[in-house]
């Protein structure tokens, strides 16, 4: 089964911030309430994250949402890489940003 999460439609078109205490649409909220439940669900084979339609997202949001997932080891990196599929048509910089954050976080867990 595939799960599609369109951040702009399902979460917010302007997510910002790092921790839950900073607001309703922060990296921690997205990771804990959207990403991890989908990724840890055995019934779901692939989680497609649609990154289109987002404006002005700071790297702090991506780091908390994706980087912290690797650092906290709540999910193994191999499962993450196997299940996670990032889709973005309108911004060529977003997927490289997230990949670079994941790479950095992977280095920090060693």
């Amino acid at each position, binding site marked *: 089964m595939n799960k599609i999460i369109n951040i702009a439609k399902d979460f917010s078109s302007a997510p*910002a*911030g*790092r*921790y839950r*205490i*900073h607001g309703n649409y922060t990296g921690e909220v997205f990771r804990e309430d959207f990403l991890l439940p989908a990724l840890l669900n055995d019934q779901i084979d692939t989680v497609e994250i649609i990154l289109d339609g987002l*404006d*002005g*997202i*700071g*790297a*702090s*949001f991506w*780091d908390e949402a994706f980087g912290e997932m690797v650092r906290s080891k709540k999910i193994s990196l191999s499962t993450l890489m196997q299940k996670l599929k990032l889709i973005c048509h309108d*911004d*060529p*910089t977003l997927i*490289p*940003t997230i990949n*670079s*954050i994941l790479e950095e976080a992977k280095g920090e867990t060693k």
Partner: protein
Amino acid sequence: MTTDNWISLAGIIIQIVIAVITFFITRHQLSTNDKRIKLDTLLSKLDGIRGKSCEYWGKQSMTPGYQKMLEINIKSDFEDIKFLLKGLHDNTFKSIKQQEIHKIQTNDYVDLNKLITGGSFETKTRVCDINKCDTIIKNISALKEKIESLK
């Protein structure tokens, strides 16, 4: 055909050729100007983001409202830079320049974005980091040099 007719026909052909040449020269000049405007705007946006981000990371303390304003402005500048970089992908650049632009877009932009909007950006626990300001200034200078070389 009489000699006069031949002369008229030659005149028409010459006028058409001149019009076609003028069209292509004008189009080339307009696209070159457009390219320069985009590059100059990009350079000034980088200057702007350098000032705002150094203020953001260099200040010991600031009010939450001012911090929020800087965060919004910085992210908005990044959106503008991204838009300008995207606009440079057109036929007015030779293929080698396209590769350079692609590298700037996928490497330098991503690195700069991570450097400035990473860490404790958009948190209530933002800490002053002078070393970060130093790195930001160096990275932006290097990026500006690369962009200047595209002119």
